[in-house]
């Protein structure tokens, strides 16, 4: 095999000469390239989609979907996942959290009230009544709720001006990042120096409510009014050793206030409020330990807001963001109060220490008991009531938050009538939350169960879904789809035929690294005497090796269009297809249109094939476009031959190379690839040939693959059928994964041999403008744009700078002495330029990449007198798109390109004269 010399096409237009051929055409046929490798094959990499909405189980599993009606939710909660045809009932106590996608913006309640309970729950609604025993509110969509007085913590009249501007628990609100993981109602960072940031404009007055918790170490930084640490922050909250501080750093000075101690050596938490007033230059921090608010004065005028927003940087340790809400603040100074007493705060800031006795809706009056005297206060005059009840731990397994801003704590009783019904301690009624109001449910004390490494289990992985469980036994109905039973589910559910999923059996299968050297061979010994040998820079199937007895029986590997990999013995190849024998499948013959590749020497070493060589190998020259090679044969030593394979027997391969028949000894052939053109016609699995057909692809841990229609599951055995390969029986224990659904096609196209597709060499581009034929010179993209600047040496010494010629009309004539048409045109251009010599028209001949001596000789020969500059590296010609010369460019008085003419024309002088004349006239007009 030899390398054919590239054939350089010289393109000729009618008049101009093309300087460089648009595409060097490749000579077809025998292309020998010394090195190769195959594209990597990683269809089984774990799903990388980050789970956002759906159900998360205590064992770490998760699934997207939605709640379904469940009459008794105490034990099981119904969940409809798009990956399954039927809902799955998950054990209620196996659920860690459920997060819902907010379909609508939060309802903004009118003038209403928020009631906080001692367990942390909070409800909003219209205040209905306060009696000796209870307080009742009418919550939107939930009706009247009666709360026992003992459970009350605070009653707050919600100010209209109090608006939520940013909710940091919604990971989508921050700039995209991969370092913080969204775990529903919290964001967690386990990586040092992980950053959450948002660039957004906020009003000058803000209230930031921040709740954080950590496992061991607390070391973070919160930037206020700074989109990320590269911007100067208005103020920063930082941990300095064991102190939480608020600091403002300016060019000349820094202000600092200690807030409170944080024990950063063990797990802890923090809840603070930060009031920011950028106008007044104040930051007020209200600590979580009941201490007085701390004010930081940052009234330095030198601060310039640049890149408004927030950032949270976890410097070290595991940090969990439990709350980050930014809302409007009316600027009222937080009041320092005696926190141990029940009290009533009025709208004008007064404090009454005492109890609310009653609220009667008729007169809209609160009756309060101050120093054993009853007083009345209008409902409009009070802001907050603080009851003197001690807070307790939550009284139920579920924390439930909604779009309307309430938090409910309790037991989920049932899911019915599009509502979730909750029994909450101290609340008389069942709370019915409309399902479309739910944002998040979580079990606060949940500890994740340790992963159970039971080998019979598999992991079902689909989009936004990862569930461990088992394939359920049974005959499969039509349309066939497998039944999967998640570990904590009541029953098995049929996998949706539309879902692309992967059922992973051996997630620990050795995946080779991509960075190791090509010659590095990794051996993995398995218990059954099988040695898997892999080149560590590629996981192409060629590196598999069977046990000796097996290898004798199936020394070759057949790759099918379906993505299947079948160990076999290739007996012969004829014009119809491949004749093989293998104990793996029943088929003895596979037609050509189903074959992707044949490995005759599966353990031949791979050699890196560069992008350029690979592209060249797969590019079909124009001359061969209608008769492209159909096969690529790789020799033992890494050469490639493009050809048409006609026959193969024990001894040799008969091939046709550029219509010539040749014989190649079979012993020298490592593998044969069937070249696919870019237009794929063969049927592929996952794209069902007939409605109702459903495929699975078994991916063996040794890399082999089988695609078929499943018919039955029996224990760890999966049975199926394929038109091509006959009946199949798969032992699930041998699998790395079972691919199901339409995604098989995608996984298949990612396989190494599937990527070998021929590409037609591009056609040469015709010259864009053929000014020689009399066009107006306006076709070039340069026209109307500022002329690219340049500074070039004059052939007689000195320099020419285009910028210096501004105000004049400049005519650039790109030429070379070897270009006949240029020499024809140049006298015309010189003649016309001379006619306008007194009208500020400058003619510059731009010579392309020739020596000064050659240029002078040409000018002497032609008897021409013009200024010529030397574009010795062709850079200026490139700037002006002068790929074909002669090219004449006119630059107007303002420095913009007005005309680009390409090619010669006997009447070019007229065209040029007219163009210049027009520019002069245009300039003369006021």
């Amino acid at each position, binding site marked *: 095999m030899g390398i054919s010399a590239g054939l350089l096409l010289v393109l000729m237009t009618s*008049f101009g000469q093309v300087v460089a051929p648009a595409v060097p055409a490749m000579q077809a046929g025998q292309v020998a390239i010394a090195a190769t490798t195959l594209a990597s094959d990683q269809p089984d990499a774990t799903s990388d989609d980050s789970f956002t909405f759906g159900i998360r189980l205590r064992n770490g599993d998760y699934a997207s979907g939605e709640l379904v009606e469940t009459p008794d939710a105490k034990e099981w909660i119904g969940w409809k996942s798009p990956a399954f045809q039927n809902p799955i009932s998950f054990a209620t106590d196996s659920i860690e959290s459920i997060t819902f996608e907010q379909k609508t913006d939060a309802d903004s309640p009118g003038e209403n009230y928020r009631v906080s309970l001692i367990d942390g729950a909070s409800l909003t609604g219209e205040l209905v009544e306060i009696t000796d025993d209870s307080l009742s509110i009418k919550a939107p969509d939930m009706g009247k709720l009666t709360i026992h007085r003992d459970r009350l913590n605070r009653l707050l009249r919600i100010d209209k001006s109090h608006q939520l501007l940013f909710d940091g628990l919604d990971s989508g609100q921050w700039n995209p990042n991969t370092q913080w993981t969204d775990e529903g109602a919290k964001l967690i960072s386990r990586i040092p120096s992980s950053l959450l940031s948002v660039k957004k404009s906020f009003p000058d007055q803000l209230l930031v409510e921040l709740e954080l918790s950590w496992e061991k170490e607390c070391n973070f930084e919160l930037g206020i009014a700074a989109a990320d640490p590269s911007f100067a922050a208005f103020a920063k909250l930082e941990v300095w050793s064991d102190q939480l501080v608020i600091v403002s750093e300016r060019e000349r000075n820094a202000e600092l206030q200690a807030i409170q101690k944080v024990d950063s050596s063990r797990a802890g938490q923090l809840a603070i409020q930060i009031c920011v007033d950028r106008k007044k230059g104040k930051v007020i921090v209200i600590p979580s330990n009941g201490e007085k608010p701390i004010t930081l004065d940052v009234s330095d005028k030198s601060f310039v807001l640049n890149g408004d927003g927030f950032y949270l940087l976890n410097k070290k340790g595991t940090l969990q963001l439990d709350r980050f809400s930014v809302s409007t603040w009316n600027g009222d100074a937080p009041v320092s109060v005696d926190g141990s007493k029940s009290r009533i705060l009025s709208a004008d800031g007064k404090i009454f220490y005492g109890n609310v006795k009653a609220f009667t809706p008729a007169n809209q009056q609160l009756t309060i008991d101050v120093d054993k005297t009853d007083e009345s206060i209008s409902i409009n005059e009070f802001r907050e009531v603080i009851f003197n009840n001690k807070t307790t731990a939550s009284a139920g397994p579920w924390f439930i938050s909604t779009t309307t801003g309430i938090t409910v704590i309790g037991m989920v009783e049932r899911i019915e009538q599009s509502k979730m019904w909750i029994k909450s301690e101290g609340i008389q009624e069942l709370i019915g939350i409309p399902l479309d109001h739910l944002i998040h449910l979580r079990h606060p004390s949940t500890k994740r169960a340790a992963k159970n490494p039971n080998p019979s289990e598999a992991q079902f992985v689909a989009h936004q879904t990862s569930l461990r469980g088992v394939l359920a036994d049974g005959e499969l109905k039509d349309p066939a789809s497998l039944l999967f039973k998640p570990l904590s589910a009541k029953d098995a559910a049929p996998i949706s035929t539309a879902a692309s999923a992967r059922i992973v059996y051996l997630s620990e299968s050795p995946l080779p690294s991509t960075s190791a050297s090509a010659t590095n061979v990794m051996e993995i010994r398995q218990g059954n005497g099988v040695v898997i040998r892999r080149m560590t820079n590629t996981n192409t199937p060629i590196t598999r090796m069977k046990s000796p007895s097996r290898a004798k029986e199936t020394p070759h590997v057949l790759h099918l269009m379906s993505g299947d990999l079948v160990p076999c013995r290739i007996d012969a190849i004829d014009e119809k297809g491949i004749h093989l024998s293998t104990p793996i499948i029943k088929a003895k013959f596979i037609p050509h249109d189903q074959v992707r590749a044949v490995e005759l020497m599966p353990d031949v070493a791979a050699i890196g094939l560069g992008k350029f060589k690979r592209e060249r190998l797969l590019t079909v020259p124009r001359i*061969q476009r209608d*008769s492209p090679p159909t096969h690529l044969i790789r020799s033992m030593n890494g050469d490639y031959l493009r050809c048409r394979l006609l026959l193969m027997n024990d001894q040799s391969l008969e091939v046709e190379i550029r219509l010539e028949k040749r014989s190649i000894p079979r012993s020298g052939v490592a593998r044969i690839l069937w070249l696919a053109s870019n237009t794929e016609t063969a049927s592929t699995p996952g794209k069902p040939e007939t409605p109702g057909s459903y495929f699975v692809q078994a991916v063996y841990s040794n890399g082999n693959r089988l695609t078929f229609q499943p018919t039955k599951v029996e224990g760890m055995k999966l049975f199926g059928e394929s038109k091509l390969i006959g009946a199949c029986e798969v032992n699930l224990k041998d699998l790395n994964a079972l691919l199901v659904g339409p995604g098989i096609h995608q996984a298949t196209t990612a396989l190494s041999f599937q990527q070998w597709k021929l590409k037609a060499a591009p056609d040469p581009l015709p010259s864009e403008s053929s000014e020689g034929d009399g066009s107006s010179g306006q076709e070039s993209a340069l026209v109307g744009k500022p002329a690219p600047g340049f500074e070039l040496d004059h052939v007689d010494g000195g320099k020419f700078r285009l910028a210096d010629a501004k105000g004049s009309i400049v005519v650039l004539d790109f030429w070379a002495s070897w270009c006949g048409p240029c020499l024809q045109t140049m006298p015309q251009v010189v003649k016309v330029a001379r006619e306008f010599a007194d009208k500020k028209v400058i003619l510059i001949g731009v010579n392309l990449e020739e020596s000064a001596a050659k240029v002078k000789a040409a000018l002497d020969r032609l008897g021409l007198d013009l200024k010529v500059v030397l574009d010795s590296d062709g850079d200026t010609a490139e700037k002006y798109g002068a790929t074909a010369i002669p090219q004449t460019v006119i630059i107007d008085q303002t420095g913009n390109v007005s005309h680009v003419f390409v090619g010669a024309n006997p009447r070019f002088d007229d065209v040029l004269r007219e163009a210049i004349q027009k520019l002069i006239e245009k300039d003369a007009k006021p």
Partner: protein
Amino acid sequence: MIDQLKTNHRLNDKFPLKALGGYLLLAIVLPNLTLAQVPTLSLGENVPREVREIYDRGLQYLATTQDDQGNWNGTGDNGPGVTGLATMVFLASGEDPNFGLYSNNVRRAIRHIIQQQDATTGYIGGTSMYHHGFAMLALAEAYGTLDDRDLWRAEEKNGRSIGRSLELAVRLAITSQKKNPSGAWRYSPDAADADTSVSGSVLVGLLAARNAGIEVPDKSIDQAIKYFQEMTSDSGEVAYTGGLGGFGESSARSSIATLVYAVARRKDLPEFKATLHYLVDHLESRNHAYAEYTRYYQAQALFQGDLEAWQKWNTLLVRQLKAAQASDGSITSPHGKTIGTSMSLLALALNYRFLPIYER
């Protein structure tokens, strides 16, 4: 022997009865010979099955789409040139044109061509010299092969014989060439310019007529060959109309030039070597706009110039035609199915080598 017979026959074309008499006599002496065109006697023995299948299906298509007037007036181009091409497909099939399967198709077609000829000027079709050229070629190929004693029905007894018609056609072509400053032909017989495509169709027709025994002045052939020489570049590319435009790659034009040089017995010319070299170098390239037209000439040019290259190219042709042939046997072209099928089958017919023009 048969070749010799045919030559004799042509020399005696003015006395077809005599010639035919001798011919029939021989047929009686050698009962295994079924008249002139016997597959076993041709050069191309052992025609591959797939070639026969494509050809037979195509023949069926042409046979069933011809109308009673001998014309193919379905979709696409039609006229005496198209009829001429289709006629040659039947003549090249190996079936006896007088008594064989398609004898009626051939007779209808030849009558159609002659009826389209102007009795005074000899111009066939009256619309384009393309028609004239291809029709003239078909007449030349049929001349001496087809027994035209009973070509015409009783009411058409005044119909011209093939020989007479061919002579008239040759005369028109020569007159047109004489008037043409380039010494070649263009669409109109009165044209003052020329192109290598029309000229190719007329010149091949003239050469076939000469081979068939019709008198064609050497001067005419030499002049036309000179025109082609002028249009041939050193690299073997052939211009279309000459002048500054029209150069460029075209396997069709290089094939036409190769063919006319070869049939004119001018393989000695450097231009022949150049065009042949170009073709052998571009075996796999295909002219998409005129695929059928290109392969019609490419087949003959390669066959005349380089048998080994032709054999390679023929493999590709068979592969392409297998893919291109519709279930009704037709092969589509931008000019219609009749032209597409006819030109493709004539390219394939080199495998049979029955047509006299295919003789090397």
